[in-house]
């Protein structure tokens, strides 16, 4: 059984241009997948379909073997969005946020783990961009989900934190059997750490080992200017 399966998946925002077309891939339990592709390739869109926020216009997606149309156990999934609009004046502290999804012990662990312990009692909205990003990651993994979808989780993080996070994800996948899908523009980081690379630009251009990905990726970003009339 696969954790995520996309079969002939298509999607269009406006009913005219296809943002995603005929996307097929399967992810096994415990795999760490890096998703790359140029800006506007449809990566975020893909995540939002998997999470049920957008409905596919064609094909289907299965989570843990169940078609997302019928999928209910959303708490098996952790998610870090690319962008989060929190209402100004939202008063909760980091600790309060974590306590929504985890018990006291687990909060302590997470905080130590992600090095967010020294601002855990400050309000979320008063943190710097990178600090917020770490807290979101903390919330995503706090409830120990089996599948993690991370949309550019290291964007805005300093190098130390980037490496640290990537390492954590690597360990979660190898040691604890969590399945991780991570979108990133940091090719170095991706190619060095993931099990498989999914190159997307409207459709899947490459899906496999990182070693052989480089050619496709270069081609992909190289041809980017050529597809003026397409979606991206």
């Amino acid at each position: 059984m696969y954790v995520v399966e996309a079969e002939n998946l298509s999607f269009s925002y406006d009913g005219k241009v296809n943002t995603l077309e005929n996307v097929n891939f399967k992810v096994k339990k415990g795999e760490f997948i890096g998703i790359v592709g140029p800006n506007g390739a449809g990566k975020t869109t893909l995540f939002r379909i998997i999470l049920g926020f957008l409905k596919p216009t064609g094909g289907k997606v299965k989570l843990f073997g169940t078609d997302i149309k019928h999928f209910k156990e959303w708490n098996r999934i952790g998610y870090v969005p690319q962008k989060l609009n929190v209402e100004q004046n939202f008063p909760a502290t980091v600790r309060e946020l974590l306590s929504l999804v985890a018990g006291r012990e687990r909060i302590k662990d997470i905080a130590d783990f992600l090095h967010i312990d020294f601002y855990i009692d400050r309000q979320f909205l008063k943190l710097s961009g990178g600090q917020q990003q770490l807290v979101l990651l903390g919330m995503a993994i706090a409830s120990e989900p089996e599948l993690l979808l991370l949309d550019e989780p290291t964007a805005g993080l300093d190098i130390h934190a980037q490496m640290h996070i990537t390492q954590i994800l690597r360990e979660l996948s190898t040691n604890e059997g969590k399945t991780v899908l991570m979108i990133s523009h940091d090719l170095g980081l991706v190619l060095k750490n993931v099990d498989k690379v999914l190159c997307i630009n409207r459709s899947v251009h490459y899906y496999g080992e990182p070693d052989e990905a480089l050619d496709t990726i270069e081609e992909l970003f190289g041809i980017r200017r050529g597809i003026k009339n397409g979606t991206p």
Partner: protein
Amino acid sequence: MELLSYDFVQRGILTGVTVGIVSAIAGVFLILRRMSFLGAGLSHAAFGGIALSMLLGVEPFLFTSIFTILVGNLVQVLIYHRRVPGDAAIALVFSGGVALAVLILGIVKGFGEYIFSYLFGNILIVTREELYFSLVSSALVLLFFIVFYKKLVLLSFSEELAKLKGVNLTLMNHLLVSVSSLVIVMAIKAVGIILASSMIVIPALTALLMGSSFLSAVIVSTGVSLVSVVAGIALAFYYDLPPSGTIVGAMIFLFGLAFLRRAFSS
């Protein structure tokens, strides 16, 4: 204060306090759900409900409660299922309710009912049934907020994340607006249609200016509301002023204090 010995006045104060508590809590969540004006919207929509109840000749209080809850859920359907921006959906029922009231008043020219007395509440005259209604409703509302506290906080942080943490968005959103609609109907009872939204929004805003965590915001909001209701009623008696005006006046005063405190501290 001989007045305090009257049953219906005692009932009024009790109603005020109860409504103060639940509206203060509901307010915090509504503001953070970007529905600060849901109170204003629903109370004005309730105006349409009252007019309708008079047109149909049914009991206004119960009918308006049901009507307001339905309208609240309509707002939610528009926002959540139809992706109408929150502001828009609220402005719509606000306008729609009033327009309905105006049209009904225009069609059935003067059915002699003093519909306007609903515009300004009358907390000093509360019947036993109304008090019981308020107490029972408030207990239910309070229970709702206690039981679903965590889910509601998560929801105010991010709907998407809440969904992934197993919160049933549809259910929770509809429960929240239903509960808020109930609170609004009670607030209308206390301070009237055009001031009902103040009870929901001003204490919560004060709390959000001061609160250093979510829980503290909820507590401060409740505190501000309670103090305002009691002080407002006392002022009203002492200076012979309309209680709805003094209660909301007290709330605004406390907001002013919180605001000055923040302005000076930074």
